[in-house]
């Protein structure tokens, strides 16, 4: 029951966030000095074309009326029509979102698989060489610009060494798997298409490493510091005193407790991965939401910008909700109190 109440409160919170985000984004996108009509119709448009365009996108109406029209559309599941692609924004999002989810999940996987063990290792070997190496790598990961890293890894692993593909989701001459989830790796597994699976995994490696490096660094540092804190606790000494092997002491008693703050970071990380995807997707020709958002912003395509923002506004709280649910599992105190 406690859980249901908690879930209801969070869902109501998400709805409130959505309303707030829609108002703020709508206001910002409509008060910026640049004219979306000039961006959409270009240099050659006649006065008649401009007037028709303004009428089509209700730009000739007062701002509050434009907002109410937009919200009315939203309530009917209509995110509007993109100025740039001339398609319904929902169709565009539906096409591009799975690619971003796949990339972000892969980056998150990198961050978990590398960041947590690195953090634990660093804490156990505090002050010694492994610790220094992990801290140095974390420092670099936390400060290196994504676009620069992306160009470097493409230059090295694709252009110089030829080990991995340099862009796109799948090889040019490999057919994408039939769409089930939109995630090529999952869809090719479902279809039993191992050629597509192989190609899509190999294409994920460089963008996922690029996108995931920053999060890996953050998670490694967070895991290290919380591990250090936990390692000094009385219950750790008690566990050792009981004669448990050091490996079990660290993994069973240390890591589980140390992971609680790391899980909080994971939720935030997933959100930041979505925003980091904007640059990564452009560099790796990855047909996802980030590249769609970039193109939309450049073209002053405000229905598309609004659509992307609202989608992000849903994803962030959902990621945080999942984190809170993970707390229930990790920390029994949250279930009681």
């Amino acid at each position, binding site marked *: 029951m406690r859980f249901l109440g908690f879930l209801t409160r969070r869902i109501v919170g998400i709805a409130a966030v959505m309303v707030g985000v829609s108002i703020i984004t709508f206001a910002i996108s409509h008060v910026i*000095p*640049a*004219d*979306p009509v*000039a*961006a959409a119709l*270009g*240099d*050659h448009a*006649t*006065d008649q074309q401009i007037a028709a365009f303004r009428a089509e996108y209700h730009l000739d109406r007062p701002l509050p009326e434009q907002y109410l029209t937009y919200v009315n559309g939203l309530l009917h599941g209509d995110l509007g029509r993109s100025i740039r*692609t*001339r398609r319904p924004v929902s169709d*565009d999002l539906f*096409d*591009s979102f799975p690619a971003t989810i796949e990339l972000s999940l892969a980056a998150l*996987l990198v961050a*978990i*698989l590398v960041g*947590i*063990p690195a953090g634990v290792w660093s804490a156990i070997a505090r002050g010694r060489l492994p610790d220094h190496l992990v801290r140095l790598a974390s420092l670099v990961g936390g400060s290196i610009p994504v676009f620069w890293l992306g160009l470097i890894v*493409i*230059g090295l692993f*694709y*252009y110089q060494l*030829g080990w991995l593909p*340099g*862009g*796109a*989701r799948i090889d*040019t*001459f*490999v*057919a*994408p*798997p*039939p769409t089930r989830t939109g995630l090529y790796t999952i869809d090719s597994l479902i*279809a*039993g*298409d*191992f*050629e*597509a*699976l*192989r190609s899509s*995994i*190999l294409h994920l490696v460089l963008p996922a490493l690029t996108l995931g490096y920053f999060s890996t660094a953050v998670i490694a540092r967070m895991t290290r510091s919380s591990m250090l804190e936990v390692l000094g606790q009385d219950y750790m000494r008690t566990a050792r005193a009981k004669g448990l092997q050091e490996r079990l002491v660290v*993994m*069973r008693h240390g*890591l*589980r407790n140390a*992971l609680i703050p790391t899980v909080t970071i994971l939720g935030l990380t997933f959100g930041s991965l979505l925003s980091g995807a904007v640059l990564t997707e*452009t*560099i790796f*020709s990855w*047909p996802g939401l980030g*590249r*769609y958002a970039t*193109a939309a912003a450049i073209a*002053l395509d405000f229905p598309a910008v609004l659509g992307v923002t609202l989608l992000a506004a849903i994803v962030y709280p959902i990621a945080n909700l999942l984190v809170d649910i993970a707390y229930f599992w990790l920390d029994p105190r949250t279930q009681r109190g």
Partner: protein
Amino acid sequence: MSIPLPRASIVVAVALLVAAACAPAGTPGTSASVSPSAGGAASTLVIDRDTSDLISLDPAVLYEFSAVFATHNVYETLVKFEGTDLTTPKASLATSWDIKDAGSNWDVTFKLKSGVKFASGNPLTADDVVYSFQRAIKLNKSPAFLFTDVAGLKAENIKASDASTVVVTMPKTSSTQTFLVILTFTIGGVVDSKEVKTKETGGDFGSAYLLDHSAGSGPFSVDHWTKNTEVLLKANPNYGGTKPSLVGVLFKHVPEPTNQQFALEKGDADIANDLGSEQIAALQGKAGVTTTSADSLLLVYVGMNAMVKPLDNVKVREALRTAVDYDGIIKDLLKGNGKKVQGIVPKGLAGYNESAPFQADVNKAKSLLQEAGQTAVTLDFLVPTGPAPGGAAWSDIAAKLKSDWAKIGVTVNIKQTTTADLLGTYRAQKGQLVMINWGPDYPDPGANVNPFTDYKAKSIAYRNGWDDATIATKAHEAELISDPAKRVAAYKEITDYVLHNGPYVVLYQPTELFGLRSNVKGFNWSSIGWAELASVTK
């Protein structure tokens, strides 16, 4: 309790990677039937380009560069330009055409080639031509103005007098020469009416279907368009002309020029379509690749608002033109990726005027200013952000101009802003000096001369407050001349006049740069924005 999650994740991830690495590369997928590998990499031409402008592949709807390039190879037109020549339309689906003075109208009669088939196998008849032109007018999408406004066509004035004859009735206020030029463009593409009619839904004339399918008679047809990823054309087995040696052409969406360069060098792309001067320089001397360039039809220019003092004085405008170091811009900033063109019609179009009399003559410019009674002039200079056509940054060109004009006592305050923002100011006649580029809507001198001279057209002359009714009238008269030689002579007179009297400093005509694999032959870029892919081999 143990921590099973990370360990399980590691196991799954490692298993996936191992499975991926071990899977035989040639294992056929369940969806291999839609793979571009139908013809194999060896016979599919891969073109890397930024295709983010794609909206539709329907010839009555599309008006974007990527779509024009692709569909030019999918749909045939009644007349066409051959090779890179854009001055004389030649026969294509029409074997001949006759322009008759019918009193208050022109009657243009086209005789169609016999035996032409669409990719579907349906024969191409006059009914298909009538349907195609009428649907373009009735759909009234981006390119429709070429038929309705420029050529003055109405749907009911396009008729088939028999299965192989089409008669188009045009008003005398429109130019038959311009109409023929428009017919070479993608809006003149003839669609398979029998096939398209079966795809019509809700009065859309099949445009939802033709968005990402095709129904043409050209050397290729659309296999698929995966949004934000690729467009694949496959060879049309029913094409009546010389069969393409390529099995397919893949337009891959690769927005970053550096990635295009890498893919070209690695052999993952055959043609890189959006290279800048840096990438071209990096490709020089590399094994297996070559580079080429071609004229574009763009003109990069500075508009001088003739309503703003002292730019209302023709001598001040002439002084600004005279002071500019055009050769320096082209050589140093563009690294040679531009041509010195100073008239308002670009090289490549009929009516191009070779006259380019201005080049950094500081003394002459100063004396012109003195004659105008001006010694120190200060003006705002509006400049877009990002790279200009030809590869140099707009800001670098602006800085060069500022320095050139400073030498004659003209101070400009550079104000850099987005193109969209700049256009808003420019359209409202609120600019003083505005740098921007212009490309014609169709490859005819009228597409440049009219907007650059006619104030009432509310285009470029209007934005620069230049209202010269005499030259505007001459421009419209020139457009209506049906004799090509007399037409060119009339345009020569007009462009000479604008060169010294108009409110423009035409800076250069940019070239477009391409990287090609060395085995790619027969790729000739037309400045209108396409290449005939049927003649390309690899």
